[in-house]
């Protein structure tokens, strides 16, 4: 029962990712786009965790963990570029 | 007609990878911006990888990490293993292409292929 709920929430999250993509595509400034990528990465972590539980594949958690660890790398990179213009 | 639609539906991974391949190809060939070209190249590569990995999928199979004593269907591990190499190759090409772009900008002051052509022809 709960598995179905998990799956449904996965689909829901993917739909929300679409909305985030809309913001990323439209977003007037680059900062908006970075926000949406940040949100997407968080949602991706959630989806991955959910999927690994739905299909009982514990090894997928490693991937989610990798995401959780380094997803904000891109955000920081973009933010730094935005702020300074260079990455040095 | 329904057959075809059903078959396309079954093979949607293949279909999507083909579509992505074409989009990547298009991006790569029609955009004169060099970074766009590189991104297009990456999209194209991922499309090919997606296609390759989909060929190895077996319905109901699990990733080939053997749990001793458990009988279950595994997917075909070979495409996955190959694509692992393929991704590295794609990243290497990307890195080198980006290094070249930096140097092109250094020399020409632009990263637009057509503009570079124009500069070269005027010189």
């Amino acid at each position, binding site marked *: 029962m709960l598995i179905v709920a998990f799956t449904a929430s996965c689909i829901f999250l993917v739909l929300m990712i679409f909305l985030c993509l809309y913001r990323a595509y439209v977003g007037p400034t680059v900062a908006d786009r970075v926000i949406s990528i940040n949100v997407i990465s968080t949602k991706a972590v959630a989806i991955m965790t959910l999927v690994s539980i739905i299909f009982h594949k514990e090894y997928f958690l490693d991937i989610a963990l990798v995401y959780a660890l380094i997803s904000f*790398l891109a955000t920081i990179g*973009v933010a730094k570029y935005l702020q300074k213009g260079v990455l040095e | 007609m329904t057959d075809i639609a059903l078959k396309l539906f079954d093979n949607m991974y293949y279909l999507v990878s083909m579509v992505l391949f074409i989009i990547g190809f298009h991006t790569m060939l029609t955009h004169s911006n060099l970074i766009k070209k590189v991104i297009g190249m990456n999209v194209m590569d991922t499309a090919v990888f997606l296609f390759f990995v989909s060929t190895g999928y077996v319905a109901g199979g699990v990733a080939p990490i053997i749990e001793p004593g458990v009988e279950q269907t595994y997917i075909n591990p070979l495409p996955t293993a190959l694509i692992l190499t393929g991704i590295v190759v794609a*990243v290497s090409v990307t890195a080198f292409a980006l290094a070249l772009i930096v140097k092109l900008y250094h020399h020409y002051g632009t990263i637009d292929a057509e503009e570079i052509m124009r500069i070269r022809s005027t010189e």
Partner: protein
Amino acid sequence: MVIMTTILNMLLLLFLIVCAISVAKTRDLLSAIIIFAAYSLIMAVVWQQLEAPDIAITEAAIGAGVTTLLLIATISKTRREE
């Protein structure tokens, strides 16, 4: 359950296509790179759906981290507008 999984897969694949098209359409290179990062993120989920965890983990490390940063490093060295 199977239907829901299929819908999930379809949505993910649709997302990939939409991402790829928006990458091609965006004029701002930084935005293109950001959307490409999103593409990579979802690609990793698709790898997971295809039971390819090794590729997914590589894609996660590469797509989200290395490639994006290399691209940003490049535009920081060159320029942002197409």
